[in-house]
């Protein structure tokens, strides 16, 4: 029972962060892709994320606050040890937010469009390096980071970050396929094929490096109980990738690629979480060690835990309101 609350909050944290990565990951990925296209297509891209990116970014804010409230030790250690990539993420999000707003009022749409893309690139790179950095054997002593400011930067974390970058671009491209039609959709399908190929290559590279024992911190998959499901999740991810590559060009449906991209993300997340369980920071800080006292977790459950399903419900409503293709007159004019 003593373990139940930390686990429940860990579950809620995982749900929140996964929602962020899938929903805002697509928005950020579209931003990264927008750096490679002309101005008219960029307009369509901004319109596709237009109404909902604030709501999607909310999940990061909820996730960050959940981490702070439920796992304060991990919150402090992660953000102070990964100070530089955390700042990249934050400055990236600043640029993304204000560039979208300024772009709608400016005559220099190209300038703000590029600022928007760079903001997204910075935010994704920051996330990728945080993710890679967490697997870089960070030195923690007495509940505090005891390493140096650049410890997170190494070949390993860079490969992971590249994979994250490609995967977000893939998510973005799959979302664009869903949101566009005709010639625009065909172009977006090419973007999907390209980004999914790079993401798959990084995925394979990371898994192979871990199997050969070159990684500073690896997933646990050779011992029970992990041996029963971590390889399975990795296989699901691999299958998801292959089917995504097939459906990206050939498929008729414009929703299937998006669903497959989500499956790839879920498979990776499940393998990662399963592979480091019960650690929050592999392999130095466990979920139970990082958790707030029981009374605090109960208090938070009454305030924030109960509200989470409600948030999901009204977000579903809002996503439904904006479902389907982008209205033409919504592309720019609604500001």
């Amino acid at each position, binding site marked *: 029972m003593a373990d139940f609350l930390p686990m429940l909050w860990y579950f809620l944290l995982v749900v929140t962060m996964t929602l962020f990565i899938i929903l805002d990951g697509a928005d950020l990925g579209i931003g990264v892709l927008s750096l490679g296209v002309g101005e008219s297509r960029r307009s369509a891209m901004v319109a596709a994320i*237009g*109404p909902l990116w*604030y*709501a999607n*970014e*909310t999940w*990061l*804010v*909820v996730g*960050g*606050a*959940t*981490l*702070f*409230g*439920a*796992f*304060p030790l991990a*919150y*402090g250690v*992660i*953000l*102070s040890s990964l*100070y*530089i990539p*955390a*700042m990249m993420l*934050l*400055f990236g*999000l*600043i640029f993304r*937010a*204000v560039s*979208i*707003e*300024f772009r709608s*009022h400016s005559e220099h749409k190209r300038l703000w469009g590029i600022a928007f893309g760079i903001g997204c690139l910075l935010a994704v790179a920051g996330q990728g390096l945080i993710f890679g950095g967490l697997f870089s054997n960070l030195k923690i002593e007495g509940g*505090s*980071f005891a390493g*140096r*400011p650049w410890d997170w930067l190494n070949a390993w974390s860079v490969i992971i970050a590249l994979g994250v970058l490609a995967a977000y671009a893939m998510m973005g491209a799959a979302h664009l396929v869903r949101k566009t039609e005709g010639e625009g959709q065909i172009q977006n399908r090419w973007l999907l094929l390209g980004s999914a190929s790079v993401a798959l290559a990084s995925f394979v590279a990371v898994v192979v490096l871990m199997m050969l024992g070159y990684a500073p911190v690896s997933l646990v998959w050779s011992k029970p109980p992990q041996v029963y499901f971590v390889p399975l999740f990795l296989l699901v991810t691999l299958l998801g990738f292959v089917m995504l590559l097939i459906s990206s060009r050939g498929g008729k449906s414009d929703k299937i690629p998006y669903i497959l991209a989500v499956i790839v993300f879920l498979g990776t997340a499940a393998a990662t979480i399963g592979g480091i369980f019960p650690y929050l920071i592999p392999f130095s800080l466990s979920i139970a060690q990082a958790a*707030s006292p029981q*009374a*605090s977790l109960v*208090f938070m459950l009454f*305030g*924030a835990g109960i*509200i989470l399903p409600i*948030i999901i419900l*009204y*977000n579903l409503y*809002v996503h439904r*309101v904006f479902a*389907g*293709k982008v*209205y*033409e007159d*919504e592309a720019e004019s*609604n*500001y």
Partner: protein
Amino acid sequence: MEYAAVDVARAQFAVTTIFHMLWPLLSIGLSLFMVVMEIMWLRTGDEMYYRQVRFWSILFILTFGIGVASGVPLEFQFGTNWSRFSAATGNIVGNLLAFEASMSFALEAAFLAVFIFGWNRVSRRMHLFSNIMVAFGASLSAFWIMAANSWMQTPAGVSLEGGKIAITNYLQATFNPDLPVAFTHIWVASIETTLFFVGGICAWYILRNRNVDFFLKAFKIMVIIGIVVAPLQIFLGDASGLTVIKHQPAKAAAMEAHWVTNPPDTSASWVLVAQPDQKEQDNDWEVKIPYMLSILSTHSIKGQVVGLKDFPINDQPPVTLPFYAFRIMVLLGFIMLFLVLWALWQWYRKRLRVESAPKHRIFWNFWLYGIPAGFLATECGWIVREVGRQPWLVYGIMRTNEGVSPVDITATVTSLSLFIIVYLLLLGLFIYFTDRILKKGPDMISPLPTFRKPNSTGGD
């Protein structure tokens, strides 16, 4: 070394907070104002109210965008720069921030999509509902942020066991003694700040003789709100001062540069202006008003007011900054009350009519240059609040230098410099784009929204 790291981390928190605060102040007020306008539209059917909502929402979304952009770094800064504080107080400050994110920010951000982009996608009632949810989320957000901050001012419901902060009563910790007045004071501040922002923009148009009818309507609503809010805020300021005297006497003494406790049966004089000297533990020079401090602080002629010298020097907050910030805030509070009363007088003398209004140029210029008044007053109040809490991070429990992250100082200095550059740029761009939006003026011709069902592929 440790000392310098604390200073840089504090400077970064100060810079990011001072900048961030500008935007929620405005978005809380504007969102409430737009709710009023949209209700009026649905009730009266007068198209002008619809156009008011649309016009002010352009400025609202710009404000909201910069607010989110500058607010997210603030949330994560607890972890990046104050990891030891986070680890020690996550079980209450972190909880309250999680409430803020999940109950309020999520609500505001989701319904904002419908409010801004949903005009043609939902019914008018649903749109009003979204508007209300945005406003409710924004105000609730301020409540939770103030709950977290006021716990740091008056930490209740805690016990200290073996140097660790343990929360013994979560309700007491959340509804700590400072919260009621602190939240009300800042919530009313955001309404008052917005009032002068909107009023000043109305003045800008009326001075240029553009859309006079449209902006007189908005201005009059501001005046009506102002009659309530401006005096109320002065009363709340007084109540807030009494809370500080009761719970944080050192801060109260620093705000007033009051060094020596007045002996029983005598009165404390109020220092109007002075040059406080912390080393000498006295003021180098001062202008005093007899009896006044006793009256202000205790509401009686011979009330005893604790002086700063009663506290050991290493428990004293800095004096000069809170002392002057406090005075500027109070002065601005009365100037704003005066501007509201002046507007009321103009209205009474029938000078707020479309034909004659633009002629009263001095009056409108005062309102135009009154735009920064609310922002400045609130920032000063916040400086008093935070600098006056020093040297404590959590009052009486944790010192500021005990909460800082073990982050390399080069990294903090770099991020601080970047924040300063980026925030100055954002402020400049906000002013630039607001100027463009104002020059473009309200849209008086677009057709009213028509509700189209989703998935109808649009276009028609």
